[in-house]
Every structure is written in structure tokens, then in C-alpha cells.
């Protein structure tokens, strides 16, 4: 009862224009809220896409349509998450109503519609909450600084590319070769020293395709931090890298051990000589460090020759023994065989004699000749 009275109390008895306006406004707000609750998909009339009919299409047409649907999905996803576009049902409704109004007025002019749509959108953007505005502002700020940085980078690249051929020629060929090799996949090493990194980055940016290499570690690590001495290090070497599947270096001809021994002895003589000897020993040390086997110690070579000789001797001995045993076994078998054959013949003869004698050996036989 009380409730009813309260409801009744809300309705004014005399409808003054101000009250009417507020009333209408309240009702309209209420309806707007209801409309917002309904997803736009169900509420708005589906006029844009005529119901697509897929089964009757040819293969190429189906492909096209599929691509189109994929694009539509992506587009709708992007639009859904775009904070500047209208997402609520109410806004979409308003937009569609405005569109209808415009289309009914000027039907031919598509451009005008587009412009009007943009205007509508702009107006809607203006209606948006401060949040969107703040986001827009912040996004506006960032491109500016990015642009600035990019411009600087470009200028720097141009500068350095102009003067690139005037690099100092002190770099060794080897390093240059290595750099060419390592173009493909090298990871960037950095420290947070903006200026240096950027400089060197630009310097090597031209050299590499995909990857950017950075030379700027050294200054940060050296103990003496002379800022005015910041030179661009031009020599960086990396660990061992294999690019092709199998890089066959030229196989050095393998000399026989005696020849190697002679060569080693000669090298020893050369080593005594200071100049050439130094060269020879450095060369040997470098190739040893790289893993190649260098045979230049006559003592070891002699040992190895001796070992080989012993091995050969042993093998010879083994072969001789084997031959002996084989021959012996063969002879044994042969003799056994011939023995067996003889036995057999002998046995045969004996059997025959037996048979003959059996007839004459019966008891009481007197006709036997021998005694």
C-alpha cells in the first residue's frame, strides 16, 4: 500500500512543462540504459550485409569470401578494442539513425556520406570520456619524440656513410674477412650507454643486413674512463663460427714420418737462427693453438717412428706364426688322412684273408698246408 502510494506520489498532478521535460528526460535515460544492456548485434537492424550464401559458390569465390570474412573478423576485433570508436549500443544506434537520415537526404553523394560519417565520429569522439582524450594526448606525444630520434638516426647514418671509405687501413685482412663471415647471425651486446651505442650502431648499421652489431662495450669496461679518448674500436673478433656445411680447407699432403723427421730437424736448425726462427716458432704456436697438429719435435717423431717399427715387427711375427700353424695343421691333417686310408686298405685285405682262412680253420680239418 505504501509502495503504491509512493509510486503514485511520483506522478505529478499538474504537468508543468519543466516537470514534463524532466520526466521525459528520466524516461529517456531509463530507456537508454535498457538499450545499452542489449548487445548491438541483436538490437540494431542488420542491413549492411545481405545474408551471405556460401554453398553455391565456386572455389575461387569461396576463397575470396573466406579471405573477406577473415579480414572482417580482424577488423571487428580491432574495432572492438579501439577506444575511440563507439562501442555501446546506444552510440551505434544514434550513428545508424544519423546515417539513415543522411542517406535519405542525399543518396548519390557517397563522399558526403563519408564526410558526414567522419563528422559523426568526430562528434562522438568529442563526446568521449576524458580517458580517451588522455590516451590520445599521450599517443600524440610519443610519435613526436620517436620522429625526432629517427631523424637523428638517419642524419647520423648519412654522415657516417659519407665518410665510410676513409676508415683507417690498420685493420687486418683477417678481421675483415671474419666480419664478413659473421654478418648473418650475431647477437647485439649492449650496455646502457646511450650516446656511444648509438654512434657505433650507426657506424656498423651499413655493414650488416638484418642484425645490428654493437662495438660500444669497450669504453665502458676500461678502467681509465677518459671520455675524450672515446675512439671507435674497429676490431672485433668473435668465437668460431661455421657458416657453410663443410668447409674443407686444403688438405696438407701428409709426408711420411721419415720425411717429417728430416723436416723437423731442419726446422730445429732454423729455430736457432733468431729472425727466421722466431717466425717459425710463432707460426707453429699459432697453428697449435688453433688445434692443427704440428710435427716439429724430432724427439717425438723419433719415438713415433720407433713405435711404428715395433708395431710392424710385431705384425710380421704374428703373420709368421700364423703361417706356421696353418702349415702344421695342414700337414697333420694330411698325415692323419693318409694314415686312415692306409689303415682301411689294410683292414680290407685282412678281412679277405680272414674270410679265406675261416673256411679252413674249422676244427678237425687236416688239409691245412702251413704249420
Amino acid at each position, binding site marked *: 500500500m505504501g509502495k503504491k502510494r509512493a509510486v503514485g506520489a511520483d506522478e505529478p498532478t499538474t504537468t508543468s512543462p519543466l516537470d514534463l521535460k524532466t520526466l521525459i528526460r528520466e524516461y529517456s535515460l531509463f530507456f537508454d540504459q535498457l538499450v545499452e544492456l542489449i548487445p548491438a548485434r541483436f538490437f540494431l537492424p542488420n542491413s549492411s550485409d545481405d545474408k551471405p550464401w556460401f554453398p553455391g559458390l565456386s572455389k575461387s569465390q569461396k576463397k575470396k569470401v573466406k579471405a573477406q570474412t577473415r579480414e572482417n573478423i580482424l577488423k571487428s576485433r580491432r574495432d572492438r578494442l579501439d577506444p575511440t570508436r563507439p562501442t555501446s549500443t546506444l552510440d551505434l544506434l544514434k550513428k545508424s539513425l544519423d546515417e539513415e537520415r543522411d542517406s535519405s537526404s542525399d543518396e548519390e553523394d557517397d563522399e558526403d556520406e563519408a564526410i558526414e560519417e567522419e563528422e559523426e565520429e568526430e562528434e562522438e569522439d568529442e563526446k568521449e570520456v576524458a580517458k580517451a582524450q588522455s590516451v590520445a594526448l599521450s599517443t600524440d606525444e610519443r610519435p613526436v619524440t620517436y620522429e625526432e630520434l629517427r631523424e637523428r638516426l638517419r642524419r647520423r647514418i648519412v654522415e657516417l656513410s659519407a665518410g665510410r671509405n676513409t676508415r683507417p687501413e690498420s685493420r687486418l685482412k683477417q678481421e675483415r674477412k671474419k666480419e664478413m663471415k659473421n654478418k648473418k*647471425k650475431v647477437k647485439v651486446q*649492449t650496455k646502457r650507454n646511450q650516446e656511444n651505442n648509438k654512434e657505433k650502431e650507426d657506424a656498423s648499421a651499413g655493414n650488416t643486413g638484418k642484425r645490428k652489431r654493437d662495438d*660500444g662495450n669497450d669504453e665502458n669496461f676500461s*678502467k681509465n674512463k677518459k671520455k675524450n679518448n672515446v675512439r671507435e674500436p674497429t676490431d672485433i*673478433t668473435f668465437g668460431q663460427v661455421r657458416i657453410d656445411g663443410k668447409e674443407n680447407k686444403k688438405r696438407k699432403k701428409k709426408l711420411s714420418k721419415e720425411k717429417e723427421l728430416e723436416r723437423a730437424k731442419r726446422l730445429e736448425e732454423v729455430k736457432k737462427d733468431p729472425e727466421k726462427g722466431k717466425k717459425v716458432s710463432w707460426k707453429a704456436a*699459432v697453428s697449435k693453438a688453433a*688445434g692443427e697438429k704440428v710435427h716439429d719435435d724430432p724427439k717425438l717423431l723419433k719415438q713415433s717412428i720407433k713405435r711404428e717399427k715395433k708395431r710392424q715387427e710385431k705384425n710380421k711375427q704374428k703373420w709368421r706364426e700364423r703361417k706356421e700353424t696353418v702349415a702344421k695343421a695342414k700337414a697333420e691333417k694330411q698325415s692323419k688322412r693318409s694314415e686312415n686310408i692306409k689303415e682301411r686298405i689294410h683292414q680290407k685285405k685282412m678281412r679277405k684273408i680272414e674270410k679265406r682262412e675261416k673256411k679252413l680253420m674249422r676244427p678237425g680239418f687236416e688239409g691245412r698246408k702251413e704249420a
Partner: protein
Amino acid sequence: MARWRDRRRQRAVVKTQVAKNKKQPGVDQVTGGKIPKSFVFARGKLPGPLKQLELDLRKLMLPYTALKLKEKKRNNLKDFLNVAGPMGVTHFLMISNPKSIPYLRVARTPQGPTLTFQIKEYALAADIAKSQPKYRCTPELFKNSPLIVLSGFGGGGQHLKLTTIMFQNIFPAIDINSVKLSSCQRIVLLNYNAEERLIDFRHYSIRLQPVGVSKRIRRIVQTHQVPDLRNLQDVSEFLTKAGYGSESEGDDEAATVSLPTDVDRVNKASNKSAVRLQEIGPRLTLRLVKVEEGLCSGNVIFDEFDTSSVYSVEKETDREAAEDSEKETSEDEPADSAED
């Protein structure tokens, strides 16, 4: 009884712990080359910090080293050599402390050259860990060999060239076409300072971070943990708040790479990723003092301090200044500074 006696008589007790049921490959399947393995051990008695340094170096050389190498007092170099042969160990790293000066010797096993470095300064991995607010060092980092980069070594001198080759061959080669980017997780940097003739040795871990993705989103993707939305009004706030690339975007352009393949969940192919290095492991400052032809034996072909030896640096420069015929190296730069 007999067995006990045998153990007493055994001279070389060099135990190496190999992981159970896992034999380390001798030849790299991909590149076809031999994988270099190393032993890190001490010669003589070492003080505490140096022992720690030895352990740090061992960790650095993983996985192709003997982590739990046990050396006894009576082990000679010969014992190590005997064990190294059948196991395919190619390099020895020896730390010694004669007259309280720490030295590091890097040698190639069978007959190879020995480089002797004097350790001028060093910092242990534990010290570095304490000095960093966020120290990240997982055992997974040590499942693959580190990369190595040398800089400043091209200047001059056969000894520098030898040093580069030596260090390049300590770590196995990588095949560009088939290496997995996610397996390159550590890097060793060597920098040669020509003025002071010192080599800086640093060890870093590599981390890739996608550029242009906010920290929160990245964290959700990497660790599937539900974020805390207590103080937010709306999910969009979570995504758009502080939605800039990263706080430290300063070195953005310089440090980014575009990856050729997917590395892990967040770093995808053809996307820009920033490379972040964090220091782990020991820090060394070395000076090359001696190069010998054999394994701690043989001729000394380079000697830093000895001016009377024929192969010293100063004499080399004198000869070269006089002759000016050898095209190999230009020792003038470091020698000039040395003469100064």
C-alpha cells in the same frame, strides 16, 4: 687387503666426475669439429679467494669441463696429461700463486703453447652477485657454452693474435645455420687495452626482451599468473596504464635486434627484441706475461718484462723500426706507449 695396498700405491688420483649415464660428445654433431674440453685446476696452494676464483672459472667453462675435478697435492702436470688424453681434454687452465702473485695459465694440451697471464685484479662471482640488486643466475644458463667476443686485439703483435686464437678455440664453434638462439645464453667479453696492455675479462648472461610490449603484458605471457587488479576500476586501465615500451627506452634503437626465429614465448620471429646483458661470473684483469712453446715448457717466445731476451717487445720494435720489412704486425702502437 691387496686392493687397499693398491690404492695406497696409486700415485695419480685425479678423479673426474662425469654425469651418470651421460657421455659427453667428442665431436660436435652439427659442425663436425672436435669439441674442446678443458680442465681448470690449481697448481700449488691457493688462498681462499683464489680458490673461489678457480671454482668460478670452472663454472664459466661449463658444460665442457670437469666441474668436480679433484686434485691432490701429489698430482703432477704429467698425471693430468695422462688423464686428459683418453678423455679428449684439449685445454688446461691453471691458477697458481707464486710469491703471492696470482697467475693464470692457459695451455693447449698435447704439446701446445702456454700463455701465462698475471691476474692484476679480480672480482669473484659472489661479490658481483651481492653488488647487483637483481642477480639472476640459474643453472640452466650453464647448459650451453658461452659465446666469446674479443675486441681490441687486432692492434698488433703476434702475441695478441695468438691470444685471440687460443680463446676462440677454447669454446666450441657454432654453426650459424642450425644454432638455436635460445641456447646462446652466456657471453664472455675480452677487451684489450692497448695503452695499459691489460686484458679485461667479463662474463655476462644474455636476456631477450620484446620491445614495444609493456612490462605487465609481458609478465602475464611469460608467467601465466593472474595479475592483481585490486586498485583498478577497469581491465582497460590495466592494459593502458603505463603502457609504454619500457622505462629505459633510451638505448632502444641501438640495442634491438630483429630475430630470425622464435626464441621463446615472448620473443617471436621478425619482432624486435632488446638484448639485455647482466653480469655474472668473475671479472678479471689480466696481463699477458709469457708465451711458451710447450706445455709449461719449451722456448719462451714472448716475454713481457724481460728486456734482455731476444723476443721481448722492445727489441722487436727496434728491429722492425730498423728493417721495416715485415708486413705482419704493427707493433708500433703498443710499443710506443710502452716506451713512453
